[in-house]
C-alpha cells in the first residue's frame, strides 16, 4: 500500500540557520511544516546563580555575556536596578554618555540582524557589508573603554571612563556615513524583489498574539503595537530627545526588518541630539563604594534593548551579594511564538522567521 507520512526533522542546535543554539523539532509534510517545537537551554551557563555569589560590582562583567551583541545595554539595565536599590544619583554627563553608547550598540545589533536576515535568504553580500560597518562602531567602543565586544563600561553612578578626545567628531562622521549606508542596505536587501517575495506575508504575528506572548521590541512594533519603553516609560533622559517609534503594519518578516532599519535611523537622530547637548561635569558620582551593601529591599529596572524589553529584578538582603538576581530576556518571550507562526510555512521560511525574530541565545538561555 502506498501511503504518506510526516517526517520529523531536527533543526539545530548545530544548524547554520538557527543562529546560536536553538533546536527546532519540525514535523514536516513534504516541505510544509505541520508542527514546530523549539527547545532551548544549550547555552545555559547559570549566570543568574553565579551572580548570587558575586558582589554587586563583580556582576557587571557577567551581564556582558548575556546578550553579547549589546553589552552596553545589559550593563545599563543592571546598573539601573542597583542605582534604584541603593539610591545612587547619576550625573548628567554620564546619562548622556550612556544614551549614546546604548544607541550605538543598538545600531550594532540591528546591523547584524539585517545582515543575518539577508544571509538566511541566501544574500551573503549584505552580511559582509553589515559586519564591515559594525567594525567601525566597535572602533568607537574601543576608543571609549578598550573593549570591542564585552565592554564592561557602565558603573554604578556613571561610566568607567570619560569620553576620549576626538570621540565626538568621529561619531558625527560615522553617523553621516551610516545614514547613507542604511539607505543603501534598504535598497539592496529590503527592496529586492526576491527578498520581498520571500519575506512579505511570511511569519505573520497578529497584534493580539504578540501581546499575549509577551513579545517586545521590533517584533512587537512590526505587528503594529506602539510600545517602546524609551517613549512610553522613559528611563534615564530619553524624554529629552526627539525621535519617532517606527511601526509595521502586517507583522510579517519584512516589516520586522524594515522596523529595524528605521530604528537605526532614529538611533542616529538620538545620538546626534545627545552629542550636541552634552553637558560637562562629572562622568561618575564620586564615593560609590566598591563593596556595595544596599539596604534590605528589591528593585526592578527595565530598558528597551534591540531585541525588546530587558529587565533586571534584584533582591537585596543587606549583604554585599544579591539574594536574587533575575534577568528578563526579550528573546525568550519572542521565540515562544515560533510554534504559532511556523505552522503551515515551508522549511526555508523557518530559517527566515527565526532570523527575523532575532533571538540571541546568550540571553535566552543565560
Amino acid at each position, binding site marked *: 500500500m502506498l501511503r504518506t507520512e510526516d517526517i520529523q526533522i531536527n533543526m539545530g542546535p548545530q544548524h547554520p540557520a538557527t543562529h546560536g543554539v536553538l533546536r527546532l523539532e519540525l514535523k514536516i509534510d513534504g516541505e510544509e511544516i505541520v508542527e514546530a517545537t523549539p527547545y532551548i537551554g544549550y547555552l545555559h551557563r547559570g549566570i543568574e546563580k553565579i551572580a548570587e555569589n558575586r558582589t554587586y560590582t563583580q556582576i557587571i562583567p557577567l551581564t556582558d555575556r548575556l546578550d553579547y551583541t549589546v553589552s552596553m545595554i545589559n550593563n545599563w539595565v543592571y546598573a539601573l536596578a542597583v542605582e534604584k536599590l541603593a539610591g545612587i544619583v547619576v550625573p548628567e554627563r554620564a546619562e548622556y554618555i550612556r544614551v549614546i553608547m546604548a544607541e550605538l550598540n543598538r545600531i550594532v545589533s540591528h546591523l547584524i540582524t539585517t545582515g543575518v536576515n539577508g544571509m538566511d535568504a541566501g*544574500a551573503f553580500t549584505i552580511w559582509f557589508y553589515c559586519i564591515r560597518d559594525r567594525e567601525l562602531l566597535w572602533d568607537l567602543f574601543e576608543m571609549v573603554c578598550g573593549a570591542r565586544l564585552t565592554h564592561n563600561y557602565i558603573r554604578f553612578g556613571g561610566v568607567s571612563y570619560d569620553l576620549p578626545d576626538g570621540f565626538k567628531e568621529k561619531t558625527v562622521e560615522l553617523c553621516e556615513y551610516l545614514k547613507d549606508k542604511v539607505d543603501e542596505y534598504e535598497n539592496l536587501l529590503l527592496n529586492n524583489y526576491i527578498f520581498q517575495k520571500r519575506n512579505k506575508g511570511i511569519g505573520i504575528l497578529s497584534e493580539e498574539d504578540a501581546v499575549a506572548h509577551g513579545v517586545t521590541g521590533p517584533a512587537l512594533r512590526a505587528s503594529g503595537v506602539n510600545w517602546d519603553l524609551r517613549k512610553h516609560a522613559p528611563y534615564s533622559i530619553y524624554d529629552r530627545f526627539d525621535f519617532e517609534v517606527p511601526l509595521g503594519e502586517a507583522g510579517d518578516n519584512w516589516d520586522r526588518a524594515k522596523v529595524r532599519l528605521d530604528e537605526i535611523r532614529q538611533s542616529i537622530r538620538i545620538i546626534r541630539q545627545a552629542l550636541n547637548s552634552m553637558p560637562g561635569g562629572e562622568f561618575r558620582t564620586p564615593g560609590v563604594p566598591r563593596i556595595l551593601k544596599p539596604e534590605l529591599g528589591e528593585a526592578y529596572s527595565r530598558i528597551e534593548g534591540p531585541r525588546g524589553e530587558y529587565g533586571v529584578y534584584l533582591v537585596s538582603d543587606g549583604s554585599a551579594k544579591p539574594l536574587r538576581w533575575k534577568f528578563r530576556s526579550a528573546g525568550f518571550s519572542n521565540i515562544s511564538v515560533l510554534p504559532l507562526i511556523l505552522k503551515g510555512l515551508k522549511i526555508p521560511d523557518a530559517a527566515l522567521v527565526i532570523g527575523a525574530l532575532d533571538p540571541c541565545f546568550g540571553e535566552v538561555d543565560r
Partner: protein
Amino acid sequence: MTAFITWLEGLLKQSDIPVVYAQVIAAALAGIVIFSVIGLSVMVLVWMERKISAHVQSRLGPMRVGPHGSLQLLADILKLVTKEDTVPEKADYWVFVIAPFVVLLPAVLAFLVIPIDSKLVVRNLNVGLLYFLSIPSISSIGLIMAGWGSRSKYSLLGGMRAAAQFISYEIPRAISVLGVIMFAGSLSTVAIVSAQSRIWYIVLQPLGFLVFFIASIAECNRIPFDLPEGEAELVGGYITEYSGARYAMFMMAEYGHLVAACAMATVLFLGGGSGFLLPPFVWFVIKVFVLICLVMWIRWTFPRFRPDQLMDISWKVLIPLALINLVIAGSITAFL
C-alpha cells in the same frame, strides 16, 4: 576531428596496427583533453569566484598562497583529495559511491558538441543541440541518488528539490532554443555558429537568450536558484554527507555545468567564436568568461527563491515567455 582521425589512420597503416584503433586513440585523446580543460577551467573558476565574491563583499579573498592566492586552489585540491574517504554507516553504499560519477559524467559529456571553432569540436553531431539539452538531465538522477543514498533527511529533501527543479527548468530551456533552430535550420552546433556570421541571434532573440540564460542558471544550481543545496535551510542539501574527493567531484560537476551552459549560450546567441582581430578561440573564451562573470555577479547579489516560488517562475513566467519568443521567431522566419 575527422581530419585528425584520417591522419592517424594513415599513420597506423604505415606501422601495421589495425586501423580501428585510430577511433579508440582519438576518443581517448579527446577524453583526456576535455577532462583537463574542465579541470583547469574549474580551478580557474573557483579562484575567480572566490576573488569576485570577495571584491563584491569588500574583502580581498585568498591572498597568501601564490600571487593573489592563485595557488590556493592547488592547496585546496590537495587537501580534498588527501582527506579520509568517509561513507556514513547507514548509507546505501553503492548508490552513495556512484552518485558523484553520475553527476560529473554529463557535465563532461556536454562538452562533446561545443564548437570552440568550426574545426575545434569533438563531434559535429547533426543533432548536437538536442544532445546538449538532454545530456545534463542525467545528472538529476545522480542528485537523487546522492540524496537518497546518504540516508539523511536533509540530503533527501535536497535531492527531491533538485529533481523537481531540473525537470521544470528543462522545459523553458528547450523551448527557448527552438527559435534559434528555426533561424539556423539545423540542430548542429557548428551550423548554428556559421549561420550567425551576419548577425548574432541575441539581437534577433533577446527574449530567447534571457529565458535560456535564466533556465541555465537554474540548471547549474546557483543563486537565486540554488535550492537543492540552500545552506541556510538544508545545511548542504544532497552534498551534506559528502566529503573529500567525492565532494570535489560534485563541485567539479557544478562548475562544469556552468561552463557548459555559458559556452552553449555563447554558441547559440553570441555567435560562438566570431569576432575581429583575435582568433576565434580567444573570442570564444572571452565571451564565455563574460557570461560566467555575470552569473557570479548575480549569485553574490541576490537572495534565493523558495521552492514553490521557483516552480511558479518556471511554469508561469519562463515557459510563457519562451512560447512568446517562439511565436516571434516563427513570424520573423515566415515573413522575412
